């Protein structure tokens, strides 16, 4: 029993990272993906924040899934999400001040991420605590990975550095850290993911582009 449970946990995690990657495949919660990925560090911090919120929300919703009245579940989920986001916001303002100055607004916007509320509704409300937590972690890691990847590309091309360590000369391709570059990088990465999917014989999501 525990063996098959382990396997499905692993699957939950890879699901979040690959086949249902929130950013590249589901095209959900893109807003911050473009905004904060001007460097690896920022992308990483935002990813961690989302990972935290998603996992905690999934856990909380799962624990109380039988106590939350179905008729008010959406407002309830929103409240829970808003609470964790507010907590993250307060922590960052006190303990990660430099990062907070750059991304403070976007951290607060985690509240409207459709991915979080959709996971809560689709998964956490119907499953036990541990699977829900793992699902949250999986999706969160997918998000984190996507942000770090985009951040790395943009920082490398835009500033010639990675994590603040200068690798190439000055500002090789400045446009990469401007908004335009952000859109381009994500568009190209999405195209890449789709191409990989086609090669594997699957059908790429032509993305309805819901939030």
């Amino acid at each position: 029993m525990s063996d098959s449970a382990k396997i499905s946990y692993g699957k939950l995690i890879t699901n979040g990272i690959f086949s249902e990657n929130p950013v590249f495949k589901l095209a959900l919660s893109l807003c911050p993906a473009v905004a904060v990925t001007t460097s690896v560090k920022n992308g990483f911090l935002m990813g961690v924040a989302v990972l935290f919120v998603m996992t905690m929300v999934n856990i909380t919703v799962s624990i109380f899934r039988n106590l939350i009245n179905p008729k008010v579940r959406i407002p309830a989920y929103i409240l829970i999400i808003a609470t964790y986001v507010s907590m993250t916001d307060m922590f960052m303002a006190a303990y990660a001040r430099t990062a907070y100055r750059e991304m403070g607004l976007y951290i607060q916007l985690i509240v409207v991420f459709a991915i979080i509320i959709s996971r809560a509704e689709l998964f956490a409300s119907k499953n036990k605590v541990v699977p829900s937590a793992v699902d949250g972690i999986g999706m969160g890691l997918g998000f984190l990975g996507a942000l770090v990847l985009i951040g790395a590309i943009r920082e490398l091309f835009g500033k010639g550095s990675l994590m603040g360590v200068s690798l190439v000369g000055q500002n090789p391709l400045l446009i990469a850290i401007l908004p335009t570059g952000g859109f381009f990088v994500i568009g190209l990465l999405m195209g890449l993911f789709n191409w990989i999917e086609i090669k594997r014989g699957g059908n790429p999501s032509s993305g309805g582009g819901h939030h």
Partner: protein
Amino acid sequence: MNDYIKITSNLMIICATAGLILAATWASTEPVKVRKEAQELEQALKGLMPQADSIQAVKDIKIAGKECKIYEAKQGGNLTGFVVSSYGKGYSSYIKLLVAIDANNTVTAVDVLGHAETPGLGDQITEGWFKDRFKGKSLEHLVVVKGDTQTDVQAISGATISSRGVTRGVKDAVEALKAAREGGLK
């Protein structure tokens, strides 16, 4: 009706719990945040006026429509100069500044506290070599010039508007200080 009460109270409980948790988090993080903000400001002020042993806020003023402050720097009880917080309208953001001014209303140093100028171009306003261009400048020389100049402020090539923004902010700071000193509310 009964149903109505059930779902409302259900939601109310969740609200109340959320509220309590947030209040608790607030209570524990806010003091830290406030303390750190004060520390950062103190460090910035000290950085501009290293020999001063006391830098006190003495007046609230408005620059570019925003709340700013005039600080008096003293050493051993004697007035050595002033620091004025200011804002200058840059290319794509309001640039937050601290301007150190001596008793003759001449700029001694400038610090850029915050901005959102263009990376690679406008963000060079935080570089030492640009900030140094304000040293020793008095009011008449706080003008931006595009070519080489020692008497006026030389613009960063490719970032004239950002340079102008900072200069404007510095100029406004000096003017505000002058006005306050003449007004005797010092």
